[in-house]
């Protein structure tokens, strides 16, 4: 081949960015486009559980083994995004599997698992209820999907990929049996775009709706080789990675202005997840899919120290996953037609609690911060045996060269899915380079001791500093090194002004999107849900932006926070919501506004008729002219 193929990847979820990274590492020219922010689709709304595969060990050995391989691989290449907590599977009466049968099946797949009596399980996880008679200790882990996606995107750009967010595909042109061009529209006002729902981002509030699905087995349109390579290749010095760059300057190196643009890539990979059928439809392909939605709830506290899954076989499960200071419980599973319209109602939270409080009784007293809904998608379910991923080359399926669609897969195996896609694309162009994503670590490592040594420099208390470093990793010093005081703007999540300003510089560009700042910093994601701090974050937009833009951005941020809260408001969280309402309506006077525009002739609000104050001013003032009233 005498030229470098230009591949366009559609979709900025964890799978799309991993495909972009893999192809970029292999030397191809890559442009990734995402209609919203990175992780705005399913990736940003999941439970963040990295499966061990133990749950499928009995039903599907190859799947389980691959799942565990990928679990190990991610723990090595992205250990700043993964927390190796271990996990517990608690079989229920409805399960066919028992503690013993699960452990036996795990042994057959080389997944380390240990049978525990109820008593032993409670000694490992004191939150388990007295009714739990036995459990299996498995190597589950938690993962921060946003941080993982951003790190993957950052790596992709380091290898030359271009990543363009807020860029939506509006047309895919087909001529003479081949895809010839893609029209994209850059969104000048991302803040105004209606989102399917609450995009929770990758920090504590994130979760994975892969709750009831096995980690995928490759049975798609393409035969794919087994997972080879395995873990390794991480230099010893790289294994103690404290954090990652929570912001991603390189993630969108160019920021085109509003308008449409026609790109002519050599190949297109459609990795738009739950939107894959819609996007395939732009090229005229019909693409049946399975879609369901899953409700998840964020708790204010962290009731468990490790993920606890109720229900130990493939099928509906309920899981409590600890993240940072919170936990995410999930997930329901209901069919849904429109991935842009996922919201259910308050009953979903009740359903989750009813099932889980038997195993984790403390959940009954947990304060619930938010409810949100994620979407699962994949190829149509045939025999009801669980979801698979499918890699469909439209040349084979539709007789049209130049585009492959990938659907399904989970967070745990996303890297493997990306590898298969990249193998296929490379094969199409006769490129024989091997995949390296299983051994090249993601960016974000730094010597932890260096960071510790300088924390006092910034006058931050240890918890604030620690939380900042968790988010920023190697960029902590650069971000915190500002002139003047650096007060905390969001107390609950320990976010300082410097970090908000950094996220604003990095995230918004010409458009204003405080939800983007929220996702990057975790600000407004604590117990007050922005009621006490959203206005402080918005104030950082001044004076760069117009007043009405700042006001709209604040309203958008609070609206997004409210949307997630309102389905599970009782107890302490309703009390908090009531105080937020009082503060904004009364103390800040934000509920009603004067009509000022019509009074421009008179210069502003008409004051006549209102009390203009007591007659005398400061009593001790000298009687010089400018100290006097009027």
């Amino acid at each position, binding site marked *: 081949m005498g030229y470098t193929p230009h591949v366009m990847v559609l979709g900025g979820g964890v799978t799309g960015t991993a495909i972009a990274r893999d192809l970029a590492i292999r030397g191809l020219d890559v442009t990734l486009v995402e209609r919203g922010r990175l992780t705005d689709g399913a990736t940003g709304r999941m439970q963040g559980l990295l499966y061990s595969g133990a749950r499928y060990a009995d039903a599907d050995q190859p799947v389980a083994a691959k799942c565990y391989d990928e679990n190990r691989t991610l723990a090595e290449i992205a250990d700043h995004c993964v927390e190796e907590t271990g996990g517990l599977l608690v079989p229920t009466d409805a399960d066919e599997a028992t503690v013993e049968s699960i452990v036996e099946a795990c042994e057959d797949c080389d997944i380390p698992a240990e049978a525990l009596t109820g008593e032993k399980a409670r000694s490992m996880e004191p939150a388990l209820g007295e009714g739990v008679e036995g459990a299996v200790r498995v190597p589950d882990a938690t993962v921060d999907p946003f941080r993982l996606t951003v790190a993957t995107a950052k790596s992709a750009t380091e290898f030359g990929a271009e990543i363009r967010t807020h860029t939506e595909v509006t047309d895919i042109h087909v001529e003479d049996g081949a895809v010839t061009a893609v029209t994209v529209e850059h969104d000048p006002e991302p803040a105004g775009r209606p989102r399917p729902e609450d995009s929770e981002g990758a920090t504590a509030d994130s979760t994975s709706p892969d709750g009831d699905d096995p980690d995928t087995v490759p049975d798609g349109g393409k035969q794919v080789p087994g997972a080879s390579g395995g873990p390794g290749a991480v230099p010893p010095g790289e294994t103690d990675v404290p954090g990652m760059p929570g912001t991603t300057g390189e993630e969108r190196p160019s920021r085109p202005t509003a308008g449409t643009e026609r790109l002519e890539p050599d190949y297109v990979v459609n990795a738009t997840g739950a939107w894959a059928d819609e996007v395939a439809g732009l090229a005229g392909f019909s693409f049946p899919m399975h879609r369901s939605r899953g409700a998840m709830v964020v708790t204010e506290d962290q009731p468990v120290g490790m993920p606890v899954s109720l229900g130990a076989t493939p099928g509906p499960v309920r899981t409590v996953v600890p993240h940072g200071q919170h936990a995410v419980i999930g997930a329901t599973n209901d069919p849904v037609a429109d991935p842009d319209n996922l919201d259910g109602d*308050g009953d979903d939270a009740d359903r989750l609690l009813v099932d889980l409080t038997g195993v984790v009784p403390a959940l009954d007293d947990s304060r619930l911060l938010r409810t949100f809904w994620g979407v699962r998608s994949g190829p149509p379910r045939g025999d009801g045996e669980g979801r698979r991923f499918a890699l469909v080359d439209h040349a084979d399926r539709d007789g049209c060269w130049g585009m492959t669609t990938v659907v399904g897969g989970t967070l745990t195996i996303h890297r493997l899915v990306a590898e298969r896609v990249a193998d296929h694309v490379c094969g199409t162009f006769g490129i024989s380079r091997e995949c390296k994503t299983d051994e090249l670590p993601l960016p974000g490592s730094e010597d932890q001791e260096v960071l510790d040594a300088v924390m006092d420099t910034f006058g931050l*208390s240890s918890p604030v500093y620690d939380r900042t470093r968790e988010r920023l990793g190697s960029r902590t010093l650069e971000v915190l090194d500002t002139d*003047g*005081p650096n*007060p905390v*703007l969001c107390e609950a999540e320990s976010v300082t*002004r410097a970090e908000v300003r950094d996220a604003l510089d990095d995230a918004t560009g010409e458009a204003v999107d405080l939800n983007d700042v929220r996702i990057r910093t975790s600000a407004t994601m604590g117990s007050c849900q922005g009621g*006490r701090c959203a*206005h*402080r974050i918005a*104030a950082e937009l*001044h*004076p760069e932006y117009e*007043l009405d833009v*700042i006001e709209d951005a604040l309203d958008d941020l*609070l*609206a997004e*926070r409210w949307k997630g809260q*309102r*389905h599970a*408001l*009782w*107890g302490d969280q*309703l*009390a908090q*919501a*009531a*105080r937020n*309402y*009082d*503060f*904004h*309506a*009364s*103390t*800040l*006077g*934000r*509920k*009603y*506004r*004067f*009509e000022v525009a019509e009074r421009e002739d008179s210069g*502003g*609000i008409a*004051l006549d*008729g*209102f*009390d*203009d*104050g*007591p007659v005398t*001013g*400061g*009593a*001790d*003032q*000298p009687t010089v002219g*400018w*100290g006097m009233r009027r």
Partner: protein
Amino acid sequence: MTDDVVVVGGGIEGYVAALTAALEEPVADVRLLVRDDGRFCHEPGWIDLLGYPPTDGDSAGDDDAGPVREPLQEPFAALSDLPADHPYSRAGIEEVRRALSLFEELSGYEGLDSDANALVATATGEVTPTFLYPDSVASGLASDDRETLLVGFEQIVDFDAALAAAKLDEQLPYDVGHTTIELDVEVGGAEPAERFAAVLDDNEELDGELPARRAVAGKIRNDLDIEPRIGFPAVLGRSAADGVRSDLEAILQADVFEVPLGPPSMPGLRLVDRLWSELDDAGVAVETGVTVTDVETADDRIASVEVAGGSAEGDDLRERYEGEQFVLATGGVGAGGLRADRERIREPAFGCYVAQPADRADWVADGFLDDQPFARAGLAVDDEFRPLDADDTPEFENLRAAGRVLGGADVAAEQSTGGVAVVTGYAAGRLAAEW
């Protein structure tokens, strides 16, 4: 021992009820049971009367009046138009006036003379109506058309002076300027507002050189032109706030005022300090750090309440107080006087019936600042402020309720929070003492 009047709850309405009872019947034994100062941390310090005519509560959420509304200039004129179950309607206009007069006397607040609403500037640069206000707000009224300089402190993040000034300058018919200064105050893990107030109260030397008040004034002087008044975030002292303000006024030769912030609100805490000393003068017995754990009843009357708390080690201390008359003043949903579980909003202290939407999904509106049904939930009362059960019968012969625990009004929306607390606290305290 048996008290004549036992008031449960430590918000404005509880303090006013206890003070009213003690002042109306000087021979009565009055006791106030208070959990903590927490509710005053949320008080902006001013007392609204009625800022906006209420919207139709029956269709709250659907019938949101929208964000653009003109506030009332003459709140008293609007009182007679309120629905019959509004707390002001229960009290009657004359009672409203009597209550505000007493409160003006107790608090030293201004604003009753004019009978008109005042406009005040908020920390985010909005203009909003209120009625009574402390000295620290008096010279800063937005409805007073003098030019204004707003001063922010870098470390006080609730108040961005530049943004607030820009918004106010756009809305008001006079100039509003701004400057933001940095003070060498080590905040550490403390609440910045409390730390700043303490530094200014004590006039601590900053950087080992200037006393704090002079240091603040010195940093502003260059930015002060001919503005006759200067607004600060409300952190200008707690115990010595008058001294802080008059020192700054003397040095800067301009009026100094404050813009209230979120919790911990210094104007709110100054108010509770003031009311506390009034309670002391009036001979009211006060128990702090306690919550009601049990209520003993006999023949449709409250005989006694048991409270727990008061001990740093936990809830070991228990005490029972008998009384002739009781006043329930524990606050609304935000304060814990009303408490929701997954099914119902309840009144946990006395178990009174709470009027509310039947379905939990209807407690909240679609938008954060839409009219919120939960804000309107609360106790229904008769004209003597006795809570009524579901059949409109008084729950107890000798229990009255006041303040945010009452339903029938979204006081945050109509800007009547402080007024309803003062008026209903007054009415309940007076009726309890007269009984």
